[in-house]
């Protein structure tokens, strides 16, 4: 709603980050996409009470963050913006699940609090890694990587088109909204009727654009696939990146028996 113009701005900000240069930026997009996928699945596979054992996984997004020299505050802000849903569902856990799972000295921690913390941590890890991925890889590069990983080209094409036109139509919608608010006083003109007219207007412009686009494609003999001048290679560095990180995640996962860690903790305190 009110935040969407802002998110459009954020979208372009993220996009700008992706065109910086660093060893991480230079890696083939396929390597990064695959590694993040493995990471997300590993994070999700942990026990629902896993908290401490998840912490070593933070190394992945944080080290990418540092190596790619990304602005931490900006990414943290994006993370905080989308946190409410996880908070909302997670906050019921302490209410419903009150059996004590962990005894820290005199403090009894219920399963609900553990799983609540776990949800928040999972959330930060998964969403954080996706944000980092998009900040070190441009969206078109991700799309091409997907295509080369076997996603149907029709869908890849759709993604590329969509991404191209989000900015164009977004700017158009923004102008319409501004024009309406300049002409409406005391909330008049914000009703459904004007809204529907605006929306239909936007739709006509969209369809008109689709027609022009189609003609342009035909006149350039478009074959259903974008040709790229430079195609990055999946070389040794990429292999090392994927295997190294995935190995790290999987080892952590195998080594982390939540129960063992819990009993160890109980022994310490």
């Amino acid at each position: 709603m009110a935040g969407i113009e802002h998110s459009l701005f954020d979208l372009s900000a993220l996009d700008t980050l992706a065109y910086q240069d660093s060893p991480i930026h230079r890696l083939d997009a396929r390597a990064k996409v695959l590694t993040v996928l493995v990471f997300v699945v590993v994070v999700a596979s942990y026990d629902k009470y896993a908290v401490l054992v998840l912490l070593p996984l933070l190394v992945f997004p944080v080290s990418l963050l540092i190596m790619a020299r990304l602005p931490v505050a900006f990414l943290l802000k994006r993370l905080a913006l989308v946190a409410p849903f996880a908070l909302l569902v997670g906050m019921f856990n302490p209410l419903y699940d009150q059996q004590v799972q962990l005894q820290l000295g005199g403090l009894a921690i219920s399963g609900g609090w553990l799983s609540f913390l776990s949800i928040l941590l999972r959330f930060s890890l998964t969403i954080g890694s996706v944000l980092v991925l998009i900040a070190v890889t441009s969206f078109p590069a991700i799309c091409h990587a997907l295509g080369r990983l076997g996603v149907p080209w029709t869908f890849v094409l759709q993604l590329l088109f969509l991404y191209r036109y989000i900015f164009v139509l977004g700017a158009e919608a923004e102008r319409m909204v501004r024009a309406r608010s300049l002409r409406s006083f005391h909330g008049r003109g914000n009703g459904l009727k004007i809204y529907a007219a605006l929306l239909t207007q936007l739709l006509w412009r969209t369809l008109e654009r689709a027609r022009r686009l189609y003609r342009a494609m035909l006149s350039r003999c478009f074959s259903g696939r974008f040709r790229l001048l430079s195609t990055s290679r999946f070389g040794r560095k990429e292999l090392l990146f994927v295997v190294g990180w995935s190995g790290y995640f999987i080892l952590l996962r195998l080594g982390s028996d939540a129960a063992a860690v819990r009993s160890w903790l109980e022994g310490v305190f």
Partner: protein
Amino acid sequence: MHMADALLSPQVGGVLWGVTAGTVAYCSRRVRQLEDDSTVPMMGVMGAFIFAAQMINFSIPATGSSGHLGGGMILAILLGGPAAFLTIASVLLVQALFFADGGLLALGCNIFNLGFIPAFIVYPFLFKPLAGADPSRRRLFLACLVSAVVALQLGALGVVLETTFSGISALPLSSFLLVMQPIHLAIGLVEGVVTAVVVQMIRQQQPGLLQLATATPARPVFSWRRTALALLLVSLLVGGIGSWYASSQPDGLEWSVAKVIGGELDSTSSLIATLDNWQQRIAVLPDYDFASATADNSLWSSRFGTSLSGILGATVSLTLIVGLGVLVRKRNQR
């Protein structure tokens, strides 16, 4: 509402990723086979249109909140099932990557809830029979409204089932449903009205664009079998949800929640309102099963084994998926 990675187990996420990936492959093939290759640029800009349309909103009278277009049904009505599905999937992928809506593992769930359901369930089995080939103004309006409401209800049900099957959240099925369904009823009504008004306008100005009559030219539109199947599906689902309501509906509070929340859940201010409200609900509902909830940490798994609602949920979703697979396949063979 988007499903989130943090609430999802790899099993549930993986299954829905599989379903979604298969559907993307199938739809891509269908779209490539289309005679009219102008569909491709059309899909691209229509996806961007959904984004842009969400920047425009309108005030809902007497509530103080505002609403905007979600878009699933409009896409299905304008583009037809497969193209609409691909478009929604692409929009959700961009949202997952840039706006961190949901996440990567949850992407399969989100595409299923918000893409598969409107494009392959509601559009062919509810919207088309309801609207018919040449509907009157009122009938078209009603078809849009009902379809949007049902699509959102099913989508919300999807989120609830996926969350409970994953078992990360301790929220019992019935209370989660009780919160999600009414909110999405309100959102669905707003969405439905907007969809209906826009479709009406399109019809007035460029009737050729609507995929009403074009998709089923030779066959008679009314078919007993399809209508019966649609009714069966809907009644199964409504029955499933309805019975939960009947057993645990405490008072009219949920209606007020819906009223307070009104349009959408994505702005922070309305989120705070939501939080407050949910907290209130917990406090004023003593007849919820808190006592037993504290007893056992594997609460959900033990409940799942015995509770009727769990079995019902499983049956409904299973029937839905298997039935649809068969139906879609049959439709394509013809």
